[in-house]
């Protein structure tokens, strides 16, 4: 294997703290998020769960200003996101979303290097592209392929690599693996969790899958009607003291696990 530049250049924990202070957003008369206040400690993996329309995507997009709140502020390491130019802010934050959004007219290396190209007009050096492909567990010769030649899972790996290319401390992931098959999804989730640890990231991931949240996150926020109705660790969630919405969400994978166990027990023993 060819030698690659170390990635990231500094291997210390550099994920920032994130704080929401009374953040609200309305679409007409519909309240998407309702005066949300919450804090995320540096290096934490937060999963936001909740039913469709509970406001979880809107909350995450308020961080990189894809959504501009009507009221309240979002602070990253104490600095209000409004103090920075939109595009500057976004370049410093990794963003991965369900529709992946690889640019079809650019090959994998160009997609991964897009942040460098728009920030400094320079393509990302080949060795860094290779390092990023290693990081997301893709063969290096994928660099010259076009997105349409990749499977969905491979495409989202490139999506993650693209988000990581700018060496962000904060990753926003809006149902990143929602469109993938369960096996790919499990593998990617697992690998991303490892990356989160290794790179010392702060990660906010929106998911509608409580099992995913329980397995990968440090903290889980349950949202309903634009509010955070529960903020707890996976262990506390499973212990079941987090309110009816959280309980209903936890019940699903628990019940599935119980039924699968029951089915296994009913198999005739050899």
């Amino acid at each position, binding site marked *: 294997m060819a030698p690659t530049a170390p990635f990231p250049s500094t291997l210390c924990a550099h994920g920032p703290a994130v704080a929401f202070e009374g953040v609200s957003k309305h679409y007409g008369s519909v309240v998407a998020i309702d005066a949300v206040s919450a804090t995320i400690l540096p290096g934490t993996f937060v999963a936001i769960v909740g039913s469709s329309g509970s406001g979880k995507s809107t909350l995450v997009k308020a961080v990189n200003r894809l959504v501009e709140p009507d009221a309240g502020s979002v602070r990253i390491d104490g600095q209000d996101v409004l103090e920075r130019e939109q595009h500057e802010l976004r370049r410093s934050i990794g963003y991965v*979303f369900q529709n992946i*959004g690889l640019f079809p007219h650019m090959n994998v290396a160009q997609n991964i290097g*897009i942040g460098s190209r728009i920030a400094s007009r320079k393509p990302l050096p080949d060795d860094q592209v290779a390092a990023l492909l290693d990081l997301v567990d893709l063969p290096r010769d994928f660099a010259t392929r076009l997105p349409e030649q990749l499977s969905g899972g491979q495409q989202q790996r490139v999506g993650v690599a693209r988000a990581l290319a700018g060496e962000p401390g904060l990753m926003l992931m809006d149902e990143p693996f929602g469109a993938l098959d369960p096996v790919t999804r499990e593998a990617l989730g697992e690998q991303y969790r490892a990356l989160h640890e290794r790179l010392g990231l702060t990660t906010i991931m929106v998911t509608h899958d409580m099992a995913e949240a329980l397995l990968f996150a440090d903290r889980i926020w349950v949202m309903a009607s634009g509010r955070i109705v529960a903020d707890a660790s996976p262990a506390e969630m499973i212990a079941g003291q987090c309110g009816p919405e959280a309980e209903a969400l936890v019940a699903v994978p628990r019940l599935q696990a119980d039924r699968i166990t029951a089915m296994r027990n009913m198999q005739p023993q050899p």
Partner: protein
Amino acid sequence: MNQGLFNQDWPRILDLLAQHVQLSFAALGLGLLVALPLAILSARNRTVAGVTLGFAGLIQTIPALALLALFFPLLLALSAVFGDAISPLGFLPSLLALALYALLPILRNAITGLRSVEPAMVEAADGVGMTSLQKLWLVEAPLASPTIMAGVRTAAVWTIGAATLSTTVGQPSLGDLIFAGLQTQNWSLVLAGCIAAALLAISVDLLLGVIESGIRWRKHLRIWLAGVALAAGLALALWPAPSPDRPVVTIGAKRFSEQYVLARLIGRRLEAAGYEVRYREGLGSAVVFRALATDEVQVLVDYAGTIWTNEMQRQDPEPRADMLAEITRWTNAQHGVRVVGPLGFENTYAFAVRPDDAKRLGLRTLDDVVRVAPQFVFGTDVEFLERPEWQMVQAAYPLRFKGRRSFEPTFMYRALSLGEADIISAFSSDGRIAANRFVVLDDPRGAIPPYDAILMVSRSAARDARLVEALEPLVGAIAVEKMREANYRVDRDDNKQSPADSAAWLDRMLRTPSQGKTP
């Protein structure tokens, strides 16, 4: 005479093709320059889209010929303000009209292309931190470009086709061949013009298609090759023709056979005198004098009555000699145009009927027609009903026709003999009157002014004594019988001659006046 499809004046066709390419490429380029920014604004704002698409759509409903003609008065007004930098004739009005015409397909496709960029692409572009300009340039434009190119292809084909019409405002194009051929019923000339324009349109469309597919499938080599081919074509068209070492004279001609023949006759005389001759043929009546006044053409034959009524805005009849003197004075004072002199024949509006009608209904004068007009269909050339002469005729004779039909002059004579019209505003020097035995009606009230053909030269040519000297022998030299014969050689159905050949015959007749008039 051989007028076969493959026996054409190739240098002339190539020259017209080059001018056609220059004009249509320039118009397409200008159209792109205007349409693309408008499309970007429109794709972001529905109101802007409504306005731009509405405007471009409205333009499209104006016939191209009319759009070209409309720029004439507009640019004439502008040139009155800005001076000679703005010419109401030739390249500029053609460029503007064709560019406007190219707007709609480019706009419509570009807006569709930009709007159909997937939301995920926009979200990704925003998410990685692109500015809106970067988003446009790196994501939206490349993704919309196949659709945009499809619009450019449509615009290119339309523009190349419509550019043939620019002949009518004095811009040389392949339309010169079509209009000249149509007028003299030289179908091989029409075909040559059509085929050349079609081949040009098809080649450009093919090359743009290669670029489109290159963009769509990301084959950069294809884009480059086709781009180079297009650029090479344009470079060839722009390649300056070897400039002649002889002085160049441009002769103007309107859109009927006599004008084509006279232009060639004058051309022969000037070539003999050592000039390099260019022709600007197929000009509309309204623009032809303007072309002389602005020195875009240097030599022209026009008719006294036309100058009198259309240019000088006079409706009062005057004796022939006074009228000529007045025209000579006025054109020189107003436009520096010099009247070299009358050619010796008149080509007036001659109201003609079929001989059987004349006999049966006893038609000898326009007064007699008043009686039968309610049963008659009046056939005219395309401009007569709008000309002051028609108002003057109506003022003198209360004519109420059953119907009116306009024809290209060629078809007007056919219409009368076929009964599609019962009376026509024929031209007195046209050989087809006698050939069809049509009866020309007298004008006892003198409503129609004299239409002596007069030879005029522009301001710059008037200073060239040698040129004027070469033209002077034509003054008073052409009897109406000779002109009719020359016209008929071009207009007749059998054994047709080209205007150039007919002009050669006429030239021989003029040099040996004692000989008989028909070979």
